């Protein structure tokens, strides 16, 4: 007889449906509001395109019939941003992880540097993005590198803080236990500090996931970028008058990329942090 964990979400299929239903309800309500607003206020396609026309636009070919379908082109651009964001995310994550371990081993370093790691969160880091892009471009680096650097930069701060907090979260008694086994420093880390820090790490990674995507998109805004969601959004906005639906689609794809990225992290968390109910 196992005791069910307190507050554990029910895993039965019935409860899944019960949880999905309100969400579907809210989405349906929003879509109804969309169409309702069009009818009620007599909004033109220019102001607020109908849902039908947005779906229709997905399947129009690009470049006057020669290119792929619009939705395919958009997803390709989304994938370009996703790739770069993921690269930056991995680099920034590893950097943050390493720094946190370093800080844990050398508290002197932490006492000096940590206030800045925290303070830097109050600084509009994203605002530097155009300069990174322009500077890197000037040096002849490929455009994806600048985007990746921005994404990495945005990932690394939350990961450092979250990971360090996690590494410190081992209880004094569980540390005593390790001591009583005369564990080596490596065993302390591998068997105790690392696993206790994982939930903290994933909380940070979830924050970093959306930051990395935003960073990649913002790094695509300065003139000169050729692919990615940022470019796509700017283009669609420019040609809004001739084809308003494209902008809505582009925003949708941006949202999709963000949610997929986040979902990936959540999935990894479920696979790795199994002990949490």
């Amino acid at each position: 007889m196992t005791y069910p964990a307190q507050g554990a979400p029910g895993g039965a299929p019935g409860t899944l449906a019960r949880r999905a239903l309100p969400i579907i309800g809210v989405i349906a309500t929003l879509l109804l509001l969309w169409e309702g607003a069009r009818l009620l206020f007599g909004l033109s396609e220019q102001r607020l395109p109908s849902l039908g026309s947005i779906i229709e636009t997905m399947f129009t070919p690009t470049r006057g019939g020669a290119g792929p379908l619009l939705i395919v082109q958009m997803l390709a651009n989304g994938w370009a941003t996703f790739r770069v964001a993921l690269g930056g995310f991995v680099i920034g994550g590893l950097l943050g992880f390493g720094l946190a371990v370093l800080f844990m081993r050398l508290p002197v370093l932490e006492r000096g540097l940590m206030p800045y790691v925290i303070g830097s969160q109050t600084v509009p880091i994203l605002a530097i993005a155009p300069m990174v892009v322009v500077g890197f471009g000037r040096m002849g680096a490929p455009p994806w590198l600048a985007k990746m650097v921005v994404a990495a930069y945005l990932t690394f701060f939350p990961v450092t803080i979250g990971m360090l907090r996690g590494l410190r979260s081992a209880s004094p008694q569980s540390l005593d236990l390790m001591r009583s086994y005369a564990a080596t420093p490596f065993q302390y880390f591998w068997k105790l500090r690392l696993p206790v820090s994982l939930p903290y790490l994933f909380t940070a990674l979830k924050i970093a996931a959306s930051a990395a995507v935003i960073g990649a998109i913002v790094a695509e805004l300065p003139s000169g970028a050729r692919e990615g969601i940022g470019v796509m959004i700017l283009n669609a906005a420019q040609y809004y008058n001739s084809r308003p639906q494209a902008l809505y689609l582009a925003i949708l794809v941006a949202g999709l990329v963000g949610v997929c990225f986040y979902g990936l992290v959540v999935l990894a968390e479920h696979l790795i942090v199994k002990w949490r109910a």
Partner: protein
Amino acid sequence: MNTPPIIEFDRVSKVYQSGGGPVTALLDVSLSIAAGEFIALIGPSGCGKSTLMRLIGDLEQPSSGTVRVKGKTPEQARLDRDYGIVFQAPVLYEWRTVRRNVELPLEIMGRPPAERRERAMSLLRLVGLGDFGDAYPHQLSGGMQQRAAIARALSFEPSILLMDEPFGALDEITRERMQTELLSLWSSAAPRPTVIFVTHSIPEAVFLADRVVVMSPRPGRVQRIVPIDLPRPRVFETRESPGFFSLVTEVREALRATENERVEV
């Protein structure tokens, strides 16, 4: 018992430096414990029971005096993996299954996986958790978790068991059952481990121990040592015997003496 002492305290004092000035947790404690002995430590809160236990386990160092364990320093004994520790809270690692928690010390000591697994399962069966090896700690009740913690402490057959109020968080019924279980685990071990058992419960101390060490607070000192000559194996009926009652009374009187002393000071 003519065996040489396994644990020896020689005029040991412990002073903590805290924010509000130094706190003398132990003053001039001398004590020797024989191999295979079951010692209960009892005394009012703050009298230094945990400190005494932590000194043995090399989780603290004495301010003066010496502690010897098997003729070695406590640190050497710790490096030789002589200690199994059980805290008041089970301190199971929530990310490991119950079986893998019991395996933890064996893993750290580099035992092969097959042996670890077998040893962990047999211990879990011994403490009545045979069916829960693959459960995570949060799926067990408090008493079950504490049994797993005891299995973990026993897993590598340490020669000394340090238990700091291990049953403190349990209800009376579970507690009495666990006491009996602990005694049978202890007496069935091939070389009996030496047990240092901190408790706040007088009947628990009397039921379990060979000797009850009564401590007095501020500063922490050994007030009296009450030998418990109740026959073993001790069973449910032991608690209802007249000998048990008179020993409980004796320990209680000794504890009250510590209070009187405090009033006089």
